[in-house]
């Protein structure tokens, strides 16, 4: 008989058991992780946020009877009183046109490249569930605006895009 062989064997078995346990724990964690991804439910309110923002922008421009020509062209939301950290998910564009459809003035804020991302999502016919939650919110509507500087009525096209919050 070899002295200490039993002890060494027991240690070896113990190490093997730790290895097995680590493997089982790892597999369990992987299964838990995957299941949490599949079963998590995401509620998308970006379209609603776009509608609310559109109303706020229209109120800001019409109720205060603003001189639209004095507003910094790409700082519309800052003019309306919003902080940059609150609006970094938004792209806002307000286009003023006259009766003949000619563009008179344009105001905006945010990254216009986000519109390209939106078009890309729209082109995708079969939306994959995991990608769906990244689709930006969008709202576009035409309103009438009275230009008090030139004393004439203009058409105001408001376009709002809201990016994902993560």
């Amino acid at each position, binding site marked *: 008989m070899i002295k200490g062989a039993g002890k060494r064997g*027991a240690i070896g*078995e113990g190490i093997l*058991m730790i290895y097995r*346990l680590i493997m*089982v*724990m790892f597999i*369990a964690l992987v299964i*838990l992780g995957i*299941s*949490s991804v599949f*079963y*998590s*439910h*995401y*509620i998308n*309110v970006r379209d*609603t*946020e776009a509608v*609310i*923002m559109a*109303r*706020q922008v229209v109120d800001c421009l019409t109720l205060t009877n603003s001189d639209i020509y004095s507003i910094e062209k790409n700082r519309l939301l800052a003019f*309306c*009183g*919003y*902080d940059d*950290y*609150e*609006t970094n*998910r*938004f792209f806002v564009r307000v286009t003023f046109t006259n009766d003949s459809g000619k563009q008179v003035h344009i105001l905006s804020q945010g990254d216009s490249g986000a519109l390209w991302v939106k078009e890309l999502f729209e082109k995708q016919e079969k939306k994959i569930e995991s990608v769906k939650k990244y689709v930006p919110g969008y709202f576009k509507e035409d309103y009438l605006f009275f230009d008090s500087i030139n004393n004439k009525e203009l058409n105001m096209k408001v376009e709002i895009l809201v990016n994902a*919050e*993560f």
Partner: protein
Amino acid sequence: MKGGKFSKRAELMHEVIIHIILVGLIFAVFFMATSEKINARGVRQQVLEKQTALLIDSAVLGMSFEIPKKNLNGIVQSVELKEGKVFIGIEGLVSFKGCPYFSKYSISVEESQDKFIIRIK
């Protein structure tokens, strides 16, 4: 010989007991994770945070609204506003992500005995 047999049996029993305990622990972790999904605290928290954020988004100056602690979405433990986000704790579930809001007004939260009051100033 007899002693050897006994020690082998004891060793085997020892191993089996440890295995049972560990399998039990893993099962408990699974059970806890599953129950977490079934009671959907996370979803209820998300619903309440998004409702609150949308209310703040559309609120006008001077408005205030209440969130009862005994809410339809569960027991509300905390309502916090940090860096343009609403964080609501429900039934021991702390909110890490929060829900972003936008407002041109100053927003504050007050806690009373049975509700949280959000004021738009």
